[in-house]
């Protein structure tokens, strides 16, 4: 660049230019080269190698001298060489695209050399690098997102970007989508495919869309997706991209379903579900209530919660303190709160409510009861009705019992006066017939005296009948005091009564009592029954050459069995039931005396003790009479 014109042209170029001689000494440099590399004119004539500038390739490897474009141009076959050289200059690192051209004369009398031209792309490179970094950041960001992110070019219908969430949520490789976007419907449940495709299509017109659909993963799992898509516009307001997100809402939907199920349950549950909170100072308010609470408290759920109404304020004033106390006890013990109380309820006067809930202690000292209230008004009314019916029934039973007792007393006094009144004339008949017999015997012949004796015999029999009838009616009197009775002393007492007959040697009496056996009964009743049976046996063995009677008691399962066995004439079992009826006799008076009351007394006495009496016999075989009573275990204490 000898001429002034050439210099001006070279200095106006943005390309840096350097002229070197064959020894790689700087001959000249244009303005751009000086500015980029920071070379002063004082450096002209210095060898480039001596400037101490590190030179490396674009990968940061040090560049050997022989590899440098300048060296190759000077030592080559005259061709232009090029390459990228990263130079460490006093102004910092510069990224240069370098071309070197060998020339026969570099001018200024230096002879052969080379002209090196370069463009500094350090700025472009930095810009591109920061773009790359931001793209990388975006990808990293995207890959850390749990939600699927995608960008599509709507004109070419090509997928531009999609994060790794696709592979995670769909369980499918993303590569086929980059080939053909239509593959994105592959995982979508067939039932949802058309709906989802249409939603995406309409997004173009409507701008944005949102839809929920199912995705079937290859591993068989079903995933619920909420997809959103939206257009992205360029600076001129034209749509450039479609982008969107897709999130896995399987859990959310499960929660939602559970929530809905819970709400349905709450809505259909009897009574109202609630959360009732008392703060540390004891101030109460509802924090939640199901709609049904309106029927119970007369206040709708929203009002109840918004106004922070206290349950205690709604409880009937008479029961407020008791309810507050039951809440305190539940909070203190951490036990369930169960309470029954009235709530004034203007349209229906008042309702009876029953509360069931569990307290939960909050960190701030508050206690929250989660539970439910139910309306038991109807139940209370029914219970009250049952109670009043019971009272009425008891009154009626009492009245009827009193009536029966009055009848019974009437009957007793009737029997009493009958026996009294019957006996008085009897005494007259007997007395005067006796006086006739003793004082006027001389006025009577043999037959007359026989008649008088018959009158007296009949009178005596009538007296016996009346006495027995009285004894029979006496058995009925009062309620038996049933309790455990030791049968052994009873048997002893009964046999002692008959000892006179036995002592005379007339009757062989044997006794057997199983030890450790107690019966439920009444001592007097038992004695009466056994004595009558024994009297009966003594009576009916009269006239036998050897009179044998056995009395005993033994256990029979959970019962005790008494028996009185004789070797008398016995009876035909055909008449079994008749012998226990009053005034029924199987024998003529001249065979065996009696009134026919004894066995009826036995039956009555045994039945009063809830026992059973029966007999076993055959004509000429003797008879055995049994009394069965409940047994109790013999305890040493009793």
């Amino acid at each position, binding site marked *: 660049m000898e001429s002034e014109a050439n210099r001006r042209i070279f200095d106006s170029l943005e390309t840096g230019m350097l002229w070197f001689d064959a020894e790689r000494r700087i001959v000249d440099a244009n303005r751009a080269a000086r500015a980029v590399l920071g070379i002063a004119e004082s450096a002209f004539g210095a060898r480039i190698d001596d400037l101490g500038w590190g030179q490396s390739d674009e990968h940061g490897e040090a560049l050997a001298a022989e590899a440098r474009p300048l060296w190759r141009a000077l030592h080559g076959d005259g061709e232009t060489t090029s390459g990228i050289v990263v130079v460490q200059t006093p102004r910092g690192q510069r990224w240069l695209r370098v071309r070197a051209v060998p020339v026969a004369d570099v001018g200024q009398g230096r002879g052969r050399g080379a002209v090196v031209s370069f463009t500094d792309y350090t700025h472009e490179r930095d810009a591109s690098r920061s773009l790359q970094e931001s793209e990388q950041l975006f990808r990293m960001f995207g890959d850390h997102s749990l939600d699927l992110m995608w960008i599509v070019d709507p004109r070419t219908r090509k997928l531009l970007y999609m994060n790794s969430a696709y592979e995670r949520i769909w369980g499918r490789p993303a590569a086929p989508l980059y080939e053909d976007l239509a593959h994105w419907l592959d995982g979508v449940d067939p039932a949802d495919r058309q709906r989802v495709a249409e939603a995406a299509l309409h997004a173009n017109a409507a701008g944005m869309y949102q839809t929920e659909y199912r995705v079937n993963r290859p591993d068989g799992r079903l995933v619920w997706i909420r997809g959103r898509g939206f257009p992205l516009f360029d600076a001129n307001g034209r749509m450039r991209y479609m982008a969107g997100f897709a999130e896995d809402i399987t859990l959310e939907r499960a929660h939602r379903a559970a929530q809905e199920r819970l709400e349905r349950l709450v809505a259909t549950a009897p009574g109202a579900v609630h959360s009732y909170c008392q703060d540390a100072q004891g101030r109460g308010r509802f924090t939640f209530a199901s709609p049904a609470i309106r029927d119970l408290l007369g206040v709708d759920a929203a009002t109840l919660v918004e106004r922070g109404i206290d349950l205690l304020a709604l409880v009937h004033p008479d029961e407020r303190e008791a309810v507050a106390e039951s809440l305190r006890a539940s909070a203190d013990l951490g036990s369930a709160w169960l309470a029954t109380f009235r709530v004034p309820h203007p349209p229906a006067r008042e309702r009876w409510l029953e509360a069931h809930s569990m307290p939960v202690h909050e960190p701030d000292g508050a206690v929250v009861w989660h539970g439910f209230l139910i309306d038991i008004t109807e139940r209370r009314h029914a219970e009250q009705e049952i109670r009043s019916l019971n009272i009425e029934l008891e009154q009626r039973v009492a009245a009827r019992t009193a009536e029966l007792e009055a009848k019974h007393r009437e009957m007793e006094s009737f029997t009493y006066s009958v026996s009294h009144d019957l006996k008085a004339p009897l005494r007259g008949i007997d*007395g005067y017939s006796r006086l006739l017999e003793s004082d006027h015997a001389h006025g009577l012949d043999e037959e007359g005296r026989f008649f008088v004796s018959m009158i007296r015999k009949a009178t005596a029999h009538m007296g016996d009948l009346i006495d027995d009838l009285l004894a029979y009616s006496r058995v009925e009197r009062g309620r038996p005091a049933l309790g455990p009775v030791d049968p052994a002393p009873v048997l002893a007492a009964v046999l002692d009564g008959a000892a006179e007959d036995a002592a005379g040697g007339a009757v062989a009496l044997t006794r057997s009592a199983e030890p450790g056996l107690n019966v439920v009964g009444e001592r007097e009743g038992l004695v009466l029954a056994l004595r009558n049976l024994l009297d009966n046996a003594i009576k009916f063995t009269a006239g036998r050459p050897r009179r044998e009677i056995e009395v005993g008691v033994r256990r029979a399962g959970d019962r005790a069995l008494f028996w009185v066995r004789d070797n008398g004439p016995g009876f035909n079992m055909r008449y079994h039931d008749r012998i226990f009826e009053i005034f029924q006799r199987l024998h003529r008076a001249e065979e065996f005396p009696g009134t026919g009351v004894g066995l009826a007394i036995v039956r009555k006495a045994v039945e009063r003790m809830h026992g059973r009496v029966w007999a076993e016999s055959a004509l000429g075989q003797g008879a055995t009479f049994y009394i069965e009573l409940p047994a109790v275990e013999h305890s040493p204490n009793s």
Partner: protein
Amino acid sequence: MEDRRPILLVEDNPMDVDLTQRAFAKRHIVNVLEVVRDGEEALDWMARWESGHPQPVVILLDLKLPRVSGLEVLRQLKAHPEYCRIPVVVLTTSREDTDVAAAYALGVNSYIVKPVEFEKFIEVAAQIDLYWCVLNQQAI
């Protein structure tokens, strides 16, 4: 030592009165048998004793009487400061436990059930005489 004051019989049945008199006669009992026919009349007797009529050695009292019952007569006699000392023997057809218990609760001295048989009645009369008129030392 025989006490020959009268015996007071409170009995409404005329036949029983007659038989009692005959039974006493059979045993040769000499005490006068004074007879009243109902409870009210028996209580009136107290006024007689006030005016000097001799008190009986024993009162034979039936329970079933017209107007005032035998138990009421017994109650009033035994509530009296002086006449409570007169021995009272209930002589009745009733062998009811309640009657026996009530009579003893009111302080009766003896309770005898009238036998139907006349012979036994004669024995009863004899025993009454022997015990109350002969053996018993009265508190007077």
